[in-house]
């Protein structure tokens, strides 16, 4: 029997387009009520994976179930249980926000009263009430994104799939979208999202799968993945003329509690610690005791970038999360 907490179960899923393999042998589960992220660079296969799960793209190999229903054999049931927020600004320029939602109400077979109640609720949620009766071509990028999200939520889904929800948005809009997503989780909705922003994956996702070259490299919570790399460290650099005191400094540091490892380097020590906040003053104290003048102490906490590099052998992308897309 399947664990009731598992809402999506993916087993050896693969997709080929002619001679090209887009994704290969994917297996993972998504648990009820979590925000699950697929993190990877453009072309890694994130969107292909998502499109198979929302039943618009049939898989070439493997199977997957969503809320216990097979994505191929029971596609129609799956479609009625999920919401989808596509990557493109998939809005009709000539329709108003409200008309978009009315159309989807028809496609999800909701009654008129149900649809209208839902529309009022969603417009309030995404703050589009004032603009609901303007045609979408007058909307800003952020407003179109909000409308997209409202559309994805219209059927009152148990699981919402978001494809690059904040791609190309300014910082304020991005933070607001993050808030909506967290709010959804609080209401018990499971979220599956793709992203190529490390910061977004780190801040928002409960668990994530790093996907690169069409395969999953590692799965875990952001914290687990970062701790997996060895945790926090302090780098102590001492004054050049003090190198003879280095062995004594090392000995002193090693005798401290909460120290996991101490390594010598040409100009000082690399110290792996449990908690930098506690170890930092203790290390300085030791230095004073052995009368060793310090040039500096650097504190380093592994970031998701380091996790990504460690598991894929390359960086996600040259820039920061705010680097310009397209």
């Amino acid at each position, binding site marked *: 029997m399947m664990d009731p907490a598992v809402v999506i179960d993916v087993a050896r899923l693969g997709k080929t387009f002619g001679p090209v393999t887009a994704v290969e042998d994917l297996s993972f589960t998504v648990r009820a009520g979590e925000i699950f992220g697929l993190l990877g660079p453009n072309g890694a296969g994130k969107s292909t994976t998502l499109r198979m799960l929302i*039943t618009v793209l049939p898989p070439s190999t493997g199977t997957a179930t969503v809320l216990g229903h097979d994505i191929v054999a029971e596609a*129609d*049931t799956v479609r009625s249980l999920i919401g989808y927020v596509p990557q493109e600004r*998939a809005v009709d320029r000539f*329709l108003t926000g409200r008309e978009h939602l009315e*159309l989807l109400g*028809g496609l*999800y077979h909701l009654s008129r009263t149900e649809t209208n109640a839902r529309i009022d609720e969603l417009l309030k949620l995404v703050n589009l009430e004032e603009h609901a009766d303007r045609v979408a071509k007058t909307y800003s990028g952020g407003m179109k994104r909000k409308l997209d999200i409202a559309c994805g939520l219209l059927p009152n889904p148990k699981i919402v799939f978001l494809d690059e929800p904040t791609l190309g948005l300014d910082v304020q809009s991005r933070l607001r979208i993050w808030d909506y997503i967290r709010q959804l989780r609080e209401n018990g909705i499971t979220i599956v999202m793709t992203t190529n922003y490390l910061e977004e994956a780190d801040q928002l996702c409960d668990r994530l799968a790093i996907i690169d070259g069409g395969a999953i490299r590692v799965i875990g919570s952001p914290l687990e993945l970062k701790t997996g790399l060895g945790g926090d460290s302090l780098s102590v650099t001492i004054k050049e003329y003090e190198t003879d005191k280095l062995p004594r400094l090392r000995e002193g540091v090693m005798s401290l509690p909460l120290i996991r490892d101490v390594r010598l380097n040409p100009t000082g020590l690399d110290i792996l610690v449990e908690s930098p906040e506690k170890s930092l003053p203790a290390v300085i104290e030791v230095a004073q005791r052995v009368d060793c003048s310090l040039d500096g102490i650097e504190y380093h906490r592994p970031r998701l970038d380091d996790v990504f590099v460690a598991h894929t052998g390359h960086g996600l992308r040259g820039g920061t999360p705010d680097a310009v897309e397209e």
Partner: protein
Amino acid sequence: MTFQHYRQEVLALTMRWVRRLSREKFSMLFTLVQPMLFWLIFFGSLFQRAANIQILEAPNYMSFLAGGVVVMTVLNNGLAGGVDLLFDKENGFLERMMSTPIHRSSVILSRYLFVMAITGMQILVILSIAFIFGVRLETGLPGIAVILVIGMLFGVGLTAISMALAFSVKSHGDFFSMLGFLSLPMIFLSSALVPLSAMPGWMQAVAMVNPMTWVIDAVRPLIITGWNAALPRVGMAFVILAIFDAVCLYGGAKAFRRAIG
């Protein structure tokens, strides 16, 4: 999937096309007016004196041309019928619709209902304008009904071609160049503007395999000659259109399945 659900989907989708059209009033006016203004009135008046009434076997050039303009309108509307779906495919709207629990065919059906309704209205407007310019329909109101039916049957196949193209092409640039490539030769290599007997031999041969010629040759006698001359032609057009539609719908369904899965 119940019938109520299907009806609800198709209605919601058709409503979308109608709303879009109502937002593009200028474009609507232009599409509606263009065929009668440009072809029927300008072209009709321009060639009035140049045309040889004996060869046309019609009282004047405009009454000869009216049937051709009706069928050209069907051609243009049909071939453009897939354009909106092409844009839906490109901007992700189609995928959004496909992620909802709708029957895959309801998008196609909604598009048909919309294109057919617009085409039907345009045919009526063209015949009314022709009436104002003195063209009297020999077969009267029943003739109009037959013209509408023939127009719809031709439109079904053409719209299928357009949708098949929309689902198959890589970019909308390809789509529009193929449309341009198809539409003008279909008009000139048919009996829309001149009768077959006035064409050079090779053009006659090509026009004979153009389904457009057969459709026009059924519509035209309904306007200028009368039932006796028209009925055998109408029968022939039905046979040709049945084959044409079957081929186009088969190809269209294949392209749709390949694109949507």
